[in-house]
């Protein structure tokens, strides 16, 4: 049985879905699982790791770790991973994980693969795949000279199992590392949205140059409200300053994989497709029937988005409520 170490992220006392996916996958493979949670509230969230398969869970529950800091976090994480004797490490490919774990991999002199989309186990060995060249192809990840195979998985890729509250999971408390004077976090500026991030969203409504100006994004905000969706945009729109860069989808923006992606007034340039072609179902609304976006779409509406989007919103409201 491969010893597997899983870094679990949590929010409001609950372990995030992405981490539950990984616990489920490792448990199904028969792994002996050690989990780790960092930050205030980790003690409260820790037992859930046990319910999904961890036999031991470490927590580092300190107010001083309220904000992420790669220097402080990497120290405690590396040491704990090393002491666990694991040969496989899994975490969600979140903004924190993508920043932190390559540094941890350096400390452990091992290899890491981020942003993977497929994970299976062949006996003890995890087999991961990841998209390359902005999703234009995919390849299997192979490790060499790596005492620990570190894999960061995109969320929403794997099933989540049923919790089992019967088993025993030992919870162990770690002491907080000292903060390195050379790098300190001084502030966290909350974004202007409390919506799910594009990279985690299940439904995305996206606007392009066809929206004509910044104000018209109201239309998409309303549609998103009805669908509980997050709003995205093309680069043309982000560059024009109609929306912040953080909303850009594509090769030089966010890579997204929702169940439903609705593209409004987006032509479907290859760099845009690169960021969203992993979506399960794609809908395009565009007045040009030859727009390349249609070639990647499941459903297409050729028409004026200013007429179609409000009607779509009305229809959804009446059907979903």
């Amino acid at each position, binding site marked *: 049985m491969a010893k597997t170490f899983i870094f679990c992220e949590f929010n409001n006392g609950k372990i995030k879905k992405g981490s539950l996916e990984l616990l489920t996958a490792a448990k199904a493979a028969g792994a002996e699982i050690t989990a780790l949670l960092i930050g205030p509230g980790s003690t409260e969230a820790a037992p859930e790791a046990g319910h999904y398969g961890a036999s031991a869970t470490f927590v580092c529950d300190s107010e001083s770790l309220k*904000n992420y800091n790669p220097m402080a976090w990497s120290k405690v994480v590396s040491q704990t991973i090393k002491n666990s004797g694991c040969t496989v490490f899994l975490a969600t490919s979140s903004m924190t994980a993508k*920043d932190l774990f390559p540094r941890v991999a350096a*400390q452990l002199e091992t290899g890491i693969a981020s942003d993977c989309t497929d994970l299976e186990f062949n006996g003890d060995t995890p087999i991961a795949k990841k998209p390359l060249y902005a999703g234009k192809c995919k*390849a299997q990840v192979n490790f060499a000279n790596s005492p620990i195979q570190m894999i960061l998985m995109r969320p929403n890729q794997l099933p989540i199992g049923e919790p089992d509250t019967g088993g025993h999971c030992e919870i162990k408390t770690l002491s907080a590392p000292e903060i390195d004077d050379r790098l300190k976090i001084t502030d966290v500026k909350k*974004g202007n949205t409390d919506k799910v991030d594009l990279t985690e969203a299940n439904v995305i409504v996206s606007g392009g140059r066809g929206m004509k100006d910044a104000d018209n994004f109201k239309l998409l905000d309303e549609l998103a409200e009805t669908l509980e969706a997050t709003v995205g945009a093309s680069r043309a729109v982000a560059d024009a300053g109609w929306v912040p860069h953080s909303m850009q989808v594509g090769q030089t923006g966010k890579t997204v994989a929702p169940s439903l992606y609705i593209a409004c007034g987006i032509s479907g340039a290859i*760099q845009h497709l690169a960021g969203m*072609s992993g979506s399960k179902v794609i809908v395009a609304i565009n007045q040009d029937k030859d727009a390349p976006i249609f070639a990647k779409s499941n459903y297409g509406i050729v028409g004026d988005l200013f007429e179609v989007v409000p009607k779509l919103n009305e229809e959804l409201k009446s059907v979903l409520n």
Partner: protein
Amino acid sequence: MRIFVCVKQVPDTETKIKINSDGNGIDESSIKWIVNPYDEFAIEEALKLKESAGEIRVTAISIGPKKRVTDALRTAMAMGADDGIVIDSEDSLDPYLTAKALSEALKKEDSCDFIFTGKLAIDDNASSVSQYLAEFMGIPHVTVVSSFKGSGGSYTAEREVEGGTKEVYSISGPAVIAANKGLNTPRYASLPGIMKAKKKPLKELTLGDLGLSGADSKVTFSNFELPPEKPPVKFIEGEPAEQAKELVKLLREEAKVL
């Protein structure tokens, strides 16, 4: 003060990817190579720092097949970098080995105050080299940086995370800064800049000079596959209200995503 900028050559974003006959890589024969877009933000930020404070030497550094990556270094020098270092290697070094080689090369230099990189390279999308490199250099890192300010020994960097939230870091001393889009607007190389770049010094190293070999990679890729073909799009006809109704029906009953 000495600043280094790490640059990588990647296939142009327009490139159609073809898989090799053995399935273990891509066909590179007809690829047009460009400087990784995020590295352009890194170059620009280094040049801005140079312009804001005196006596700063900006050195661009790249690893890869010499002929290919020298183009990237000349681009950086045409934009304004003072000199370049090329580490010649066969292709496909993983992030670990890339960072190891970069760190060994940088340790040979007299000093190193900042290292600018792109937040990721758009080919392998690893977003790992900057952090590996920082650890190997024994200095802090901040990635996905969309604002960088400061002077003397004290700097502030803003890192963009989920939902447009920004973490603000204060940094003292050398660090690796990995640039995100929005950090700045990269300048174009001017014609005189391009002419001058041809004469700027370029130091050449090999992996062997750094005590490393291609076999030190820790992650490789195999079994390449193209995405499955999408079935043809289903166009929905009619007046907007009818189209909306039909679409919602299809999304609920056929696609089952609502």
